[in-house]
């Protein structure tokens, strides 16, 4: 089917981009292996959709497509969770920066009543 060729081509492109980013040092080896593996599996599913039906039957879900949807939702939730934690971590680091700046601005309290122009 045409869609299979289109999607496979897209996946090859994504894997190619991952390899380039790996080479450039933007992605760590661990992340690269994960993403290449991930897209490789997606590629297999696209080219041989029956494999998912086999797996679905194995775990007791009706259709292969359903299994993919379930797994995707779990994965997406997991990624969102990780991102939320990461954002909170960044927030806390921002606070540390702001606090350090605030505490370095000690001079204004020792004497003259100057309004500090930081913004």
């Amino acid at each position, binding site marked *: 089917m045409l869609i299979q060729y289109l999607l496979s081509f897209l996946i090859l492109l994504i894997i190619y981009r991952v390899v380039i980013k790996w080479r450039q040092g933007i992605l760590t080896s661990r992340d690269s292996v994960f993403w290449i593996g991930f897209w490789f599996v997606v590629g297999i599913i696209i080219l041989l959709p029956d494999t998912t039906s086999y797996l679905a039957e194995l775990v007791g879900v009706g259709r292969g497509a359903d299994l993919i949807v379930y797994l995707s939702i779990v994965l997406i939730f997991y990624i969102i969770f990780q991102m939320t*934690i990461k954002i909170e971590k960044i*927030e806390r680091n*921002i*606070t540390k920066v*702001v606090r350090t700046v*605030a505490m370095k601005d000690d001079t204004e309290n020792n004497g003259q009543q100057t309004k500090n122009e930081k913004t």
Partner: protein
Amino acid sequence: MKTIAVIPAYNEERTIADVVIEVQKYVTEVVVVDDGSADHTMERAKRAGAIVYSHFLNRGQGAALETGKKIALLRQADVIVTYDADGQFVAEEIINVVRPVMEGRADVVLGARFGKSNIPPVKKFFLKGATIFTRLTSGLNLSDTHNGFRAFSREAAEKITIEQNRMAHASEILEKIGRQSLRYEEVPVTVKYFSPQMRRGQRLPDYLKILFDLFLGKNIK
């Protein structure tokens, strides 16, 4: 003994000057942490005689408290009092709040609004819920949990680091009191509630947000 009051303030230009002037009567120094206010909070606090430090970005009450606590420790405070900038507390009661720490009976004193204040019923319900939650998570048996009126001994302040930027810091403090097995005491304080149009404090979504923040905090190393 050197007592320093720490007052986090975010857009409180209407009340901050009066609060600083009142509080000054009962402590050695007043430290106001201006949490990135867009109004004249900083100038008003300074003119009223407070030592003012300023976050150039708004980071939340927990973050401002931690900054103030650090500054108070640097300024050699023996006792640190945390106080709200919105004028809901009665400054005179600082004497009562500080006393157990001064006398060495407690490491931390927590203000409790029940008994002394006229609290709206819905508010009361959520505050009660929070006390049950606190009992389960920190083991502290309190009548009020999210009250900004507190006193810390120097040693207690050194042990408690506030990491929650926003409102969840109140629960965080209690949890850390429990974990460090600090001696705590509750002292009744007055909390003035203004007309219902003037909304103060937390609402249901805020409480959910606090729970979520606490949960997140558990997952950050």
